[in-house]
């Protein structure tokens, strides 16, 4: 699969699974490293609990079901936490979208329930379902019936009553019962006479247990014209919904498990429950009897760390968050260990603090400290992970083109793969597509042809499956990419990936691509072409919205680039947005708000989604969203899997002079790594042993020791394991980490000396363990598995030196610490150079 020829988008899970195996085999041939855990495709760890249910098996009245051939597969049903799961199906019917008046036709509703049906433990009890929060026609707990009282089915009758007004038909309201037994009823029954009346003080759809803002129910998800579809579903635990209480710790015979719940997939036809359209509740018996249900088993919730345990801070990389969360409940119970809480902040700040402050948090970083003096930090690799582009793009075949029927039949089904090159990523990040800019203003400063969206760019079509050319996709969210605000190593890695590619570099410098498209000049790296008069630097760790475009529609407020395409809070949020199809669209103008403002746009319904986002491989795996394959320096399009990240790790070279921090940067080694995922990033735990007291040194060392142990590096969904979206550390890396942990425990040492040149490959490192031949003192500088032998970062295009861009807060910090004189000098020196760079004509 890893050839110059772009792979056809994988249409089925089986197909992508096969490609993963092929990659795995290739990598296995190169890697003689015995990884800590067996290398596995990132999606495979959860497949053990995949469940498929069918109408024919579950529905005794299958022949009358809205979709008799429906078969639904749920990607994960065990060890669930607050996460996404993928629900996919075949045998549905072409759907009609909901409108203001009804819920649509031939669609699925997906939601969770907690209780078993008292009459049939193999089915959920409809009174325990979190349903109705959407509060749209066809997705409520209650409705006026299109039936007379005498026509109401017996099952619904206890929940049905008449109004005082004779014009109104009978009203059925399904109560909700929470796990703790509290309940809301919409119908009151007189205990003496048995007369039922409507309790008008109760709103079953907006209640104390859930509302449209908190519910995870999917009120409508459609099938493509071929009757298939897929959607990511947000699983909620008791932390998100106490009424459902899924995952609440239950101890039976000394074993603690999480309380189970149900996932319900409810097929709805064109009409039901006596109505001519889907205006009625899916909980009414005529619909409910056709519900499919899958039992969901949860990991127990709650703090499983010893009460009163010491708390230690980790600071820095968001990339490590999900791994730390997984390790936490295990590592905190180990002797000498503590509770570790991770504060996400720019990695460059975290390492600076770790290097210069006493008893600083353990820094988690992907890049080394920027200093011209000796780096006092010890770096222990704890995770191999990456940054990825998540996508939710549903097919919309162009109706005016003569295209194959197979393409037409797949309308509204999601694409499951896409190929991106560094230049395409550059176009997306520089707002060079027209729809990424607010409409209604002069965009003549964009010279040459500018497609509306990336999917209409011939550059994109040249590297993707021909089916993309048959689509008529539109919208701002596929003209740019949703990015987080602030600074991060992830952003730095993305720009480095772009800067390392000659085509992308030329494009950013203002050279037209082969189809004539020119970069948005506000992002031009050629100062002469940039309206600011300054070159846009690629040596940066933020993702700026540099185009100052602003448009003010008549009688409305101004719209600039940030209003039009807002930032997300962090990388993980972007994966969640992708799961929900929330493209962060601008909403309507609210003149009554104080001050007047634009509201938030609604999310796109499954079947009509089109968005791209920048996120972490681990968040993408948690929310089970589709990710893009990126072209690596070897010219292959590679998706982020454990294997492809391991292949990248194998080809990493040193980022610092001492050769202690590695990264996947373009060079001869990277160009040979055909299976490498190019945005793979290691995460290092970094501490300065000279500035930590013994307690902290022990605590940090214990964390690193567990994180890099075989238990902590085994891919899996159990607590203490390595979550999906990470690759297990190769043995040589783990050895390096152990040495660094030992160095941290050992405490202050003389200034570390650079590691000697080493030409060993990972293969030889593996056999040697990577430490015995270094000849260096283990406690002064932990040996690295794959030092490149040169301290220079070899980017094929020659990127400018790393720019420290230390923030003012850090400067103050340094000033306060008299011991850090050398660091201060280094900072001033580099700062001066930085200023020169910016003032370059």
């Amino acid at each position: 699969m890893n050839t110059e020829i772009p792979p056809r988008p994988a249409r089925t899970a089986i197909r992508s699974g096969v490609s993963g195996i092929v990659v795995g085999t290739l990598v296995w041939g190169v890697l003689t490293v015995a990884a800590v855990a067996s290398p596995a495709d990132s999606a495979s760890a959860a497949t053990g609990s995949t469940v498929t249910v069918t109408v024919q098996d579950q529905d005794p009245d299958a022949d009358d079901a809205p979709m008799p051939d429906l078969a639904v597969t749920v990607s994960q049903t065990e060890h669930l936490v607050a996460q996404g799961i993928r629900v996919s199906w075949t045998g549905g019917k072409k759907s009609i979208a909901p409108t203001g008046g009804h819920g649509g036709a031939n669609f699925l509703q997906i939601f969770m329930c907690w209780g078993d049906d008292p009459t049939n433990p193999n089915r959920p009890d409809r009174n325990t379902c979190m349903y109705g929060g959407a509060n749209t026609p066809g997705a409520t707990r209650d409705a006026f019936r299109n039936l007379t009282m005498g026509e109401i089915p017996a099952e619904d009758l206890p929940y049905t009553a008449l109004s005082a007004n004779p014009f109104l038909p009978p009203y059925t309201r399904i109560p909700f019962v929470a796990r703790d037994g509290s309940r809301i009823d919409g119908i009151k029954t007189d205990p003496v006479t048995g007369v039922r009346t409507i309790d008008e003080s109760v709103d079953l759809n907006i209640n104390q247990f859930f509302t449209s803002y908190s519910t995870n129910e999917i009120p409508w998800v459609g099938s493509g014209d071929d009757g298939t579809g897929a959607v990511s579903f947000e699983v909620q635990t008791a932390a998100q919904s106490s009424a459902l209480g899924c995952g609440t710790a239950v101890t039976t015979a000394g074993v603690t498990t999480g309380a189970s719940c149900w996932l319900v997939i409810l097929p709805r036809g064109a009409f039901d429950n006596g109505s001519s359209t889907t205006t009625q509740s899916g909980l009414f018996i005529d619909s409910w009897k056709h519900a499919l249900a899958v039992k969901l088993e949860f990991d127990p919730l709650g703090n499983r760390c010893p009460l009163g345990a010491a708390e230690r801070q980790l600071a820095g990389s968001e990339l490590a968050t999900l791994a730390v969360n997984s390790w936490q409940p295990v590592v905190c119970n180990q002797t000498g260990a503590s509770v570790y809480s991770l504060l996400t902040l720019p990695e460059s700040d975290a390492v600076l603090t770790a290097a210069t402050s006493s008893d600083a948090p353990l820094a988690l970083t992907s890049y080394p400290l920027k200093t011209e003096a000796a780096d006092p930090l010890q770096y222990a690799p704890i995770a191999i992970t990456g940054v990825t582009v998540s996508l939710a793009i549903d097919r919309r075949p162009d109706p005016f083109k003569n295209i194959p029927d197979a393409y037409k039949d797949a309308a509204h089904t999601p694409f499951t793969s896409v190929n991106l090159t560094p230049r395409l990523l550059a176009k997306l990040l520089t707002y060079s597509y027209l729809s990424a800019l607010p409409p209604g203003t002069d965009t003549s400063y964009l010279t040459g042809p500018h497609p509306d969206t990336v999917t209409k760019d011939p550059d994109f079509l040249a590297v993707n499956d021909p089916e993309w050319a048959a689509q008529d996709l539109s919208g701002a969210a596929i003209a740019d990419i949703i990015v987080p605000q602030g600074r991060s190593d992830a952003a730095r890695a993305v720009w480095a990936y772009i800067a390392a590619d000659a085509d992308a570099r030329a494009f950013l410098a203002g050279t037209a691509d082969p189809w004539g498209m020119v970069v948005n000049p506000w992002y031009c790296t050629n100062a002469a072409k940039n309206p600011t008069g300054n070159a846009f630097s690629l040596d940066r760790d933020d993702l700026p919205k540099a185009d100052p475009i602003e448009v003010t529609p008549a009688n409305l407020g101004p719209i600039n680039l940030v209003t039009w395409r807002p930032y997300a809070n962090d990388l993980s949020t972007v994966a969640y947005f992708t799961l929900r199809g929330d493209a962060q669209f601008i909403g309507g103008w609210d003149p009554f708000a104080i001050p007047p403002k634009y509201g938030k746009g609604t999310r796109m319904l499954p079947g009509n989604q089109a968005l791209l986002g920048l996120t972490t491989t681990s968040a993408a795996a948690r929310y089970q969203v589709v990710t893009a394959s990126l072209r690596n320096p070897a010219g292959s399009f590679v998706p982020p899997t454990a294997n492809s990240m391991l292949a990248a790790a194998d080809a990493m070279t040193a980022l610092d002079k001492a050769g202690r921090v590695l990264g996947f940067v373009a060079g001869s080694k990277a160009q040979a790594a055909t299976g490498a995922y190019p945005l793979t990033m290691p995460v290092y735990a970094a501490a300065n042993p000279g500035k930590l007291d013994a307690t902290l040194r022990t605590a940090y060392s214990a964390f690193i020791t567990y994180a890099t142990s075989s238990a902590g590096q085994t891919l899996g969904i159990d607590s203490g394991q390595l979550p999906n979206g990470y690759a297990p550390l190769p043995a040589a890396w783990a050895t390096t980490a152990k040495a660094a942990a030992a160095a941290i425990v050992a405490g202050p040492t003389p200034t570390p000396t650079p590691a000697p040149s080493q030409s060993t490959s990972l293969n030889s490192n593996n056999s040697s363990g990577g430490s015995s031949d270094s000849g260096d003192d283990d406690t002064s500088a932990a040996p690295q598995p794959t030092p490149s032998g040169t301290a220079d970062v070899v980017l094929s295009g020659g990127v400018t030196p790393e720019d420290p861009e230390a923030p003012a807060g850090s400067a103050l910090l340094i000033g306060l610490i008299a011991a850090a004189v050398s660091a201060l000098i280094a900072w001033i020196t580099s700062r001066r150079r930085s200023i020169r760079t910016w003032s370059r004509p």
Partner: protein
Amino acid sequence: MKSKKLVAIGATAVVALAGIAFTGAPAFADPVGDGLSIVGSDTLQDAVSALANGTTITGSSVKVSGNGLVLGSWDAFTLGVTGGVGKIQTKPFGNVFDRPNGSGAGRTALLRSIGYNGGSGTNYIYNGVNVQDQVDLARSSSRGTVVAGGVLTYVPFGQDAISFMYKVGTDGDGDGDAAAAATWISDLTLNELTALYTSTTGSPVTVSGTDYVVKPLGLQSSSGTWTSFLSKIGVTTTSLGSGVDTRGNTIPENDGAVLTPTVDQVQIIPVSVANYIGQANNAARINTMAGASVGSIDGVAPITGSAPNLAPSTVFYNSPTWGRTVFIVVPTAKITSGNPAYNQGVFDLTNPASLTSLTYWGASGSPATSKAVKLRFGFSAPQDAAFTANN
């Protein structure tokens, strides 16, 4: 409650006032009586006006009234007059307030008329003017959110459908491809409508094999027909293509005169099929539909027959995609017997069991029923049930 005598005096007064205030407008565009007032959706305004003012379109005289009270139906805006909104006065000596120009505005005016303020306190102010007791009913082509014991009751008025109408411009080079363009545009698929309304100025949709370019038009943003059309074709206001012309957010609903295709151009715009039929059958007071045709969607024609005997296609009207039930909205208290606010006139006007109420769809086939009039105006039997809501 007012005595009948007072009402009769008021009626004279309002006729006089109307004569002075609205000399520029079509003589019968606004009500000429006193009694009960109804405002809101323009989709229903022609049929409700005819029923309120009396009509012989079915061959029999049909005029609704509420226990002796005349119903005054106030248009959303005046057909064929751009920006014909202005202000209205619905009751003798009542305040003059902004004319509610659509379903949502009509319901808001009705809610303010009864002082409803989201369940807390009372608020009679509509667009800065106290409208207490000025509005008795509302016409609505959209639904509120169903809630038990809602202060508004929605009683079905009939079934409408949404489609698009079009006009084909003159043939620039005279090669006779206007007919081909007309045939092409007369039947579109849902996906084609989506593509048309996401097309950009840079890449407009052309009619293949002809010189014709399609220009999609958009309605003013508060239009219920516009928002439901967009949701049906899966387009949001954000994803709307730059090729869609809304003429600065000024295009009124159901006005065929806004279609002004240039040479080698086809213009299309969403339309209420019932309203189109009502105008094309000359049942409505103004027919703006000359030269405008209603298109089929996915091969299903919304209309059968030919003018002046156009009739709804049941298949199209009852389809979940394109059909919609439209409503008469009334304060629940005014039709709940025993309630202090109970009003026999409002009850009679909205009683589905009465042959001459606004909401009758019973078994009678007599031309003297309101049902017969509504059929002539392009409505068919409603598919949704009555319900209550707070919005």
